[in-house]
């Protein structure tokens, strides 16, 4: 199993959700996060004085998936979240040691 964590532009969240649902993914976890990458922050003016927005809002989505669909999910997220402009985000993939569905006690691929 893989844990796929993607940081994406918030306005792409709905598209990504639909794309992974089309593949048959049953659940994702979404968090509103802030941070910076190579896009850095940006400056704004308030009453003529500059202020720096260091951390930009992003959406973090997490999906636990079976090994055989992982590549497909990664591709779907990358394709839908991509605008080609700086700040599109990143996808991190880690091995997932175990998953348990709390209600039934199912484990492993059955549980994701």
């Amino acid at each position, binding site marked *: 199993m893989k844990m796929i964590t993607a940081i994406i532009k918030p306005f792409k969240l709905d598209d990504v959700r639909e794309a992974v649902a089309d593949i048959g993914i049953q659940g994702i976890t979404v968090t509103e996060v802030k941070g910076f990458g190579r896009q850095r922050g940006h400056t704004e*003016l308030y*009453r*003529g*004085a500059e*202020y720096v927005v260091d951390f930009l809002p992003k959406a973090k989505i997490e999906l636990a998936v079976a090994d055989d669909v992982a590549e497909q999910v990664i591709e779907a997220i990358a394709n839908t979240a991509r605008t080609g402009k700086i700040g599109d985000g990143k996808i991190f993939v880690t091995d997932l040691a175990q998953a348990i569905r709390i209600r039934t006690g199912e484990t492993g691929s059955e549980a994701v």
Partner: protein
Amino acid sequence: MEDIQVAAQVTELAYALDTFYFLVMGALVMWMAAGFTMLEAGLVRAKNTAEILTKNVGLYSIACIMYMLCGYSIMYPGGFEGGVFQSLSTIGSGLLTSSDNTAADVIASGGDTYYSGLSDFFFQVVFVATAMSIVSGAVAERMKLWSFFAFAVVLTGFIYPVQGFWKWGGGFLQEAGFLDFAGSGVVHLCGAAAALAGVLLLGARKGKYGKDGRINAIPGSNLPLAALGTLVLWLGWFGFNGGSQLVVSDVENSNAVALIFVNTNMAAAGGLIAALLLARFWFGKADLTMALNGALAGLVAITAEPLTPEPGVATLIGAVGGLLVVIAIVTLDKLKIDDPVGAISVHGVVGIWGLLAVCITNEEATLGAQLLGMISIFAWVFAASFIVWFILKKTVGIRVSEEEEYEGVDIGECGLEAYPEFTSAE
């Protein structure tokens, strides 16, 4: 005989109408306290909201009491009876009310006495509160609450009434031909001069100006409140300017009041659009807070003379105010004079413009008299305020500790928060 009775009834009716108009206009001006309160609450940070609300309701009440005790009688020494300086003995025995006009006096005056003396007191008292409201925004987020209140006592009980007497009480500025219809100078420049003196002694908010000369923005916490406050002020200003005609009960005067309403409204609109456009072209984006200040600047600009301009000219006078206020806010920031809500720019810089703009449309105005009024008011209020602030600074202090400023003056001064979180009922 019947004719005389009818004439007397008409005189009484006109008196009633003018008094009613005066009171309603005064009530509108009272509502400007709500406008200032909301505007300032919106432009400070959330951690300082409850304190700025406390300041505003407190200063309003202090202004009312001090003006009753002594302010009114200093400002109008020959006029209506009342105040400690004139009649200490009347306190508790129907202060002010015993000497209001009787029907016989009113009829005998043949219309020269056209409103209740108490209605005049009420109308004047809400003006002094307006002047004091201007100060609270400029010193927001870092001043000790009780030092501010102490200053409010002196400004509303003494500093404001003295210069008010110079103009509206029949003093030397009135005699010199200085024109200030509803108070661009007497109210707005006065408030701004007191605020400037306070800000200079108080210093900037921590973090506002960086070591290398950087100017940091400290965005306000609630722009919906700031917008609401501005619109409330806009509404209240119809009373401020419209009521200053003092009489409405004949065709000429009611037309004048109508023109004042229209001009006041147009000047605010002109100021808002001018400030919004300037901000858009200068900063690249439509800064709402500048637009709001622009509307207020338009209102301040037209206050010295809302009666003689045509509505088109009033719009332009307001628009110039709107441009000036944006430039003034940026300039004061460069001078490291930290005014979180732009009060000194709106009421001071544009107040001066309003006084000068009288010369454009009023043939009776002279530049010399306008300059004399402007300089006299500014010099007196600034100097007197500076001394009071200075004494407060050297005795009880005017600034909260650095730690309290960081934590927010809500908790430090009021022991509560405007928006409490993580509280438990148990």
